[in-house]
C-alpha cells in the first residue's frame, strides 16, 4: 500500500485509490468494471434474445421455466412480408445513408469554409427547423408525399429522412472540415484548380473517415426509425419496424413474434456496427 509499489518512476505525489492497489488488483478491478459495464448495456438486448426463444405462453414470465423454442422465428420467417420488409429496410437505410451524406457533406463544407450572411442564414435555418417537434408536421408530410405522388414509395420515405439529417450532419460535417487545414485547398486553387476541384480532390479525401462514421450512425438510425415509416408507407413498401408494430392490434400484442422479429432485425445492425466500428471511432472528429 505504498507508493513504492508503483512501477512508474514518477516523483512524489499523493497516491490515488487506484494507484495504491497492487498491479494485479488493479487489473482485476478494471476487469470487473468492464464486465459490469458490458452487462448493464447488454442486459436488455440479451433479455430480448432470451424472450424471443420462449414459447408464446412463457414470453412474459421469461424467468419462470426453462422451455425454449425456435418456433417464433420459424413462424415469423414464414411470413413473406417480413422478408420483403427486411429487404426494403435494408435498401432504404443504404440509400438514405448515401443520399444524406451526399447532401450534407457539401453543406457542412460550406458552413466550415465561408463566413457571411449566407452561411449564417443557412445555419439558423437548419437549427430553427430542427427544433420543431414531429407531432405538428408528420401529418402534413403525409399530405405532401401524397400530393407529390410519392406516398408509399422509396422516394417518399427517403427524401424526408434526408431532410431530417440535414441539420445534425451539416453541423458535424462542419466540424470535420474545421479540423482539416484549408491551406491545401488554397494551394490547389492557385495551381489552377476550381473551387469544386479543390473541394472534391483535396478536402473530400481528408474527410472520408468522418463520412464513414456518419454513414454508420445514419444507417442504424434509418434502420430503426419508426415514426416516418409508419406514416409514410403502406402495403406497397413494408418497412421492418412497421411490420413489427403490426403485431400489436386493438386486442393486445403478439410479443413472442414481435421479439423474434426484433432479434432478426438486430442481425444486420450488428454486422454494420462491427464492421464499421473502427471507422466510426477513428472518423468522428467533431
Amino acid at each position, binding site marked *: 500500500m505504498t507508493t513504492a509499489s508503483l512501477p512508474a518512476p514518477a516523483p512524489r505525489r499523493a497516491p490515488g485509490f487506484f494507484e495504491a492497489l497492487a498491479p494485479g488488483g488493479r487489473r482485476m478491478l478494471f476487469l470487473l468494471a468492464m464486465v459490469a459495464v*458490458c452487462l448493464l448495456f447488454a442486459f436488455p438486448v440479451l433479455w430480448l434474445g432470451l424472450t424471443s426463444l420462449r414459447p408464446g405462453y412463457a414470453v412474459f414470465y421469461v424467468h419462470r421455466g426453462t422451455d425454449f423454442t425456435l418456433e417464433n422465428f420459424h413462424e415469423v420467417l414464414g411470413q413473406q412480408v417480413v422478408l420483403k420488409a427486411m429487404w426494403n429496410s435494408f435498401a432504404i437505410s443504404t440509400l438514405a445513408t448515401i443520399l444524406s451524406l451526399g447532401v450534407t457533406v457539401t453543406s457542412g463544407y460550406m458552413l466550415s469554409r465561408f463566413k457571411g450572411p449566407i452561411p449564417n442564414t443557412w445555419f439558423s435555418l437548419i437549427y430553427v427547423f430542427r427544433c420543431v417537434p414531429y407531432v405538428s408536421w408528420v401529418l402534413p408530410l403525409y399530405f405532401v408525399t401524397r400530393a407529390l405522388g410519392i406516398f408509399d414509395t422509396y422516394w417518399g420515405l427517403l427524401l424526408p429522412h*434526408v431532410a431530417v439529417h440535414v441539420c445534425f450532419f451539416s453541423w458535424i460535417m462542419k466540424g470535420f472540415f474545421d479540423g482539416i487545414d484549408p491551406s491545401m485547398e488554397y494551394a490547389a486553387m492557385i495551381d489552377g484548380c476550381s473551387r469544386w476541384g479543390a473541394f472534391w480532390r483535396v478536402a473530400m479525401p481528408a474527410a472520408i473517415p468522418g463520412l464513414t462514421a456518419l454513414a454508420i450512425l445514419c444507417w442504424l438510425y434509418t434502420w430503426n426509425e419508426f415514426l416516418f415509416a409508419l406514416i409514410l408507407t403502406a402495403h406497397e413498401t413494408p418497412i421492418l419496424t412497421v411490420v413489427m408494430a403490426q403485431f400489436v392490434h386493438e386486442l393486445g400484442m403478439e410479443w413472442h413474434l414481435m421479439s423474434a422479429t426484433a432479434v432478426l432485425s*438486430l442481425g444486420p445492425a450488428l454486422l454494420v456496427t462491427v464492421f464499421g466500428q473502427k471507422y466510426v471511432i477513428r472518423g468522428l472528429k*467533431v
Partner: protein
Amino acid sequence: MSSPTATRRPFLGLDEKKRFMLALIAPAVFALVFFQIVPIFTGANASFRDWALHDPKRTWVGLKNYLYVLRDPEFLFVVLPNTFGFMAASVGCSLGLGLALALLLNRKFRGRWLVQTVILLPLMVAPVIAAIMIRWMFNDQFGIVNVVLDLFGLAPVAWLTQRWTAFLAILITDVWLWTPWFTLLLLAGLQSLPPEPFEAAQIDAATPWRVFRHITLPMLRPVMVVCIVIRSIDAFRTFDIVWTISGGGPARATEVFSIYAYVEAFQFLNFGRGSAAAVIGAFIIVFFAMGLYRILNRWVEVSK
C-alpha cells in the same frame, strides 16, 4: 464548372463565390424546403384554424388554440416542469456516463473492441421495441427488475404506479439508450486531441484528475457543447419511450411536452390545438437551446 470567374455572366447579380456557396447547399435546401419547411408551415397554419382531424373546417380562429394551451394549468405547471426536468436529468446523466466510458475506452486494453461493440448495442435496437421490452422489465409481477431486487433481499416496487419511480424507469431507459451516442462522439473527440499537452503533463507528474480537469476537459469542451445542445433539443422532444413506458401516467404525473401535443392532435383529434402546442414548444426550445449554446460557448472561451 471549372471555367474562370471572369468569363462567367453574373447570375442574379451573384459573384462566383456566392454561386459556389449556394450550389453547395442547393440539394440540402431542396430536401429541407419540401420535406420539412413546407410541412412545418402547413402544421403552423393549422394551429390558427379550427382543424379537427375528423372534421377539418379550416376556419380561421386566430390565437384561440394558443390561448387555450398557454392558459392550461396542466401545461404550465405539470408538463413544462416535467419536460425540463427530464431534459436536464437525461442529458446530465448520459453526458456524465458517456464521458466516463469514453475516457475508459480511450485507454488501450485487450478486448477493447468487444467492450466498444457491447456499449453500442442500444443504438442497434429499434427504440420502439426497446421501450416495450423495458415496460415488461419494470412490471411488478413478471418484470425481471423486481426479480433481481428480490435476489438482493429488497422489497418489490410497483414502478409505474407512482410519479417518481415511473420517472426513474423512464430516465434509466433514456440514459441507456443515449449514453452510447455520447460515448461515441466524445471518444472521437478524445482521439482527435493533439498529444503534446498530455506529454507535458506526464513530465510534470500531474495526477490523472488534474490532467483530466485542466487539459482533457477544456480541450474536449467544443465537442461537448455540440453534443449537449443537439441532445437537449432531442430530449425536449422525447416521445416514444415516455409514451410506451408510462403513457405520461400515472394520471398525468410524467407527461412531457410531446405527449401533450400528441394527445391533443391524435387522441382528441384536435389537430389545430396539437399544432399550437407544438409551435409553442418549438419556440421554447429554439430560445432555450440558443441561450444554452451561448452560455456553453462563453464557458469554452473563458476556459481557454
